[in-house]
């Protein structure tokens, strides 16, 4: 026999933990679950009353959940993307409005500040951001630029030691509740290289909250217009350098997409749990299991995909934690998880039937909440575009 395949390759059996959480992360997840049980009991009311979950977010802040993506030297816990994903799946399985508030704060705003801001900027804003004294919002979209982000029109003109900013940002999550805005604005004519990123504080003159959207779901999270009228933005609030805005936006979105993927996983899990409990409760006159086979098969398909797409999400989070570019992987996670969330929520309504649609269970809310995950932080077709380009490159 010639050239045998190396027997030493399998010297040690692979560690079981590769697809399981480490004890530390498992403990962290348990802490988050404890939080969800104690503090997210009003999820249905936030939805019905269109009420911001201020109390739930404050409780999360007290537990340190608003600082997971910030380095230790700035008061963060530096837990990184994987831990944040695990946390966000838990929170979103109970309350998406709390979930998206934290996702935007951590995965978009804090991540961006940590990666792109200078020392002075970090020291200026992180003390308020890690404690949740301030909440962050991410202002990229405009009325005429959604998926095509580079078409944005909001402009910032340098006048001496400050920029004068004018424009309006649309669909801003946490818009009416946030204190710190990362705003992308045009500092030059070039479609892509003319975009720069700024920090804008709510308290500055000319910063206003415009129209608040009335939405299918995610109703506890205020989605608003942010109007910028002759806002004087100090030059030291420019993030990185002029013209780097689009690069910053896209890079940040990779992390943001992991947050939304995790939100979707949470919604999917909640829907799958509803289906499982509903089917497990169906017994015949003699107490034997009696659930519809078709419904059981649906449950099996959804549960397999939940595990599979969670792995996609973790894979991308680990890459990002290791500072490896993960645009394709993050897009795969967001694409798959968001579609699963909607599929699972629709199935929950169908299988629970009247109880799924009547408002007697959370199924109908899950269906409404799930729908946004395919839209924001890069719609489904944008994820596909990113993936296809990555594959064909």
């Amino acid at each position, binding site marked *: 026999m010639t050239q045998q395949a190396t027997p030493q390759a399998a010297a040690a059996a692979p560690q079981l933990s590769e697809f399981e959480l480490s004890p530390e992360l498992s403990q962290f997840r348990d802490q988050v679950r404890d939080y969800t049980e104690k503090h997210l009991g009003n999820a249905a009311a936030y939805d019905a009353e269109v009420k911001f979950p201020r109390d739930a977010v404050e409780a999360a802040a007290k537990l340190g959940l608003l600082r997971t993506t910030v380095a230790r030297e700035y008061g963060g816990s530096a837990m990184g993307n994987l831990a944040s994903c695990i946390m966000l799946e838990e929170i979103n399985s109970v309350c998406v409005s709390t979930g998206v508030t934290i996702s935007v704060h951590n995965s978009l705003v804090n991540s961006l500040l940590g990666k792109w801001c200078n020392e002075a900027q970090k020291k200026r804003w992180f003390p308020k951001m890690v404690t949740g004294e301030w909440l962050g919002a991410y202002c990229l979209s405009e009325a005429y630029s959604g998926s095509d982000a580079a*078409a944005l029109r909001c402009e910032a003109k340098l006048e001496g030691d400050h920029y004068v900013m004018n424009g309006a940002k649309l669909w801003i999550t946490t818009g009416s509740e946030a204190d710190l805005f990362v705003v992308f604005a045009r500092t030059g004519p070039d479609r892509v290289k003319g975009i720069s990123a700024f920090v804008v504080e709510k308290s500055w003159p000319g910063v206003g909250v415009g129209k608040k*959207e009335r*939405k*299918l779901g995610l109703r506890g999270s205020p989605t608003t217009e942010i109007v910028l009228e002759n806002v004087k933005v100090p030059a030291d609030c420019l993030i990185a350098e002029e013209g780097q805005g689009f690069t910053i936006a896209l890079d940040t979105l990779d992390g943001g997409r992991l947050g939304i993927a995790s939100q979707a996983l949470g919604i999917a899990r909640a829907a799958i749990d509803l289906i499982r409990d509903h089917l497990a409760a169906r017994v015949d006159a003699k107490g034997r299991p009696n659930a519809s086979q078709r419904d059981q098969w649906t449950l099996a398909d959804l549960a397999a995909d939940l595990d599979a797409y969670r792995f996609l999400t973790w894979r991308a989070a680990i890459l990002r934690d290791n500072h490896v570019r993960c645009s394709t992987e993050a897009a795969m996670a967001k694409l798959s998880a968001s579609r699963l969330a909607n599929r699972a929520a629709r199935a929950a*309504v169908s299988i629970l039937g*009247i109880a799924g649609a*009547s408002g007697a269970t959370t199924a*109908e809310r899950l269906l409404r909440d799930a729908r946004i995950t395919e839209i924001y932080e890069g719609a489904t077709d944008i994820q596909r575009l990113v993936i296809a380009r990555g594959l064909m490159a």
Partner: protein
Amino acid sequence: MHNLQLTEDQDLIVDTVRKFVADVVAPKVLDQDEHRQFVRAEFDGLAELGLFGLCVSEANGGVGMGYVPFVAALESIGEHSSSLARLWIGQAQAAAALEAAGSDELEAVIGGAVLATYVGPEYGVVFADGKLQGSADLVSAGMHADKIVVAATAAGAPVLVLVEGAAVEKRERRALGLASAGPAQLLLDGVAATSLATGDAAASAIARADLTAWIGCAATAIGGGFASIAAAKKHAGERIAFGKPLLKQQAVADKLVEAARVVEAARHVTWHAARLADLGNDATAVAMQAKLSAIDAMVFAADEAIQIHGGFGYTVEYHVERHYRDGKALEVLDGGSGALRALLAARQLA
């Protein structure tokens, strides 16, 4: 004569309905849905147009034109308000059951003086000693119906009974969809009821009411599907991204083409069911297929329409999120998809 072609009389009805919907219903539908306002005035409008007797024979005081114009008219209503369509369907179910049972309550239902609704056999309501046991959730017009026709069982056999709406305890529901149809949970325990028909007569009345619901829901869903496509097409024609209208993005065009294909296919099945019923043939299986296909098509079309709208689609102003919710709400009524498939299996595989 080919499919989807109406007689002059039928055309006149549909035109009248279309005008009524455009003038009266469409302008208010967003507000009414958001605030869960019951659309009694619109219901009365349908009554004034004399629509509630469409499927009732002339001999019994109806118009006797049958299911084809019923379907065509409901499509038009479904384009704007599935809630209003569902109210008509409930009224039509009650009328169909009352006609089959030979009840003299029929006239007031046809005329619309009485707002009626129907509780189907899927709720498992029991009738004994003149009173009901059970409850029924997500009943359209449940909060407001003057009369409720209930398909119950007495000692295991089908029985059709009538209940006064005022006698029933109701709970308003914050339901997924059909928000303007006054969805409610009806608590029927101990409620007095009048028997209208038993045995075969009850069974045939119940069958007629089922058929009416399946065909009616299918027609409503076709309307909702077309409306979703129309809204998305309009938006995609106006919205510029990457330097050209969304409509010129091949992936967007493709979604619209696919959505139109499935809605139109479901429409053929729906019209076929209506024709079979009008010819006096057994339309049961085709009507169930029509409901399954049309609901799938409506939800698919609305889902794609939301996606094409992007962030706009998630807001209430663009109507498509409402069609998405209403489609799922229509799905679970009348037994839901699982029950329809089980009934089809029993028929087709026996």
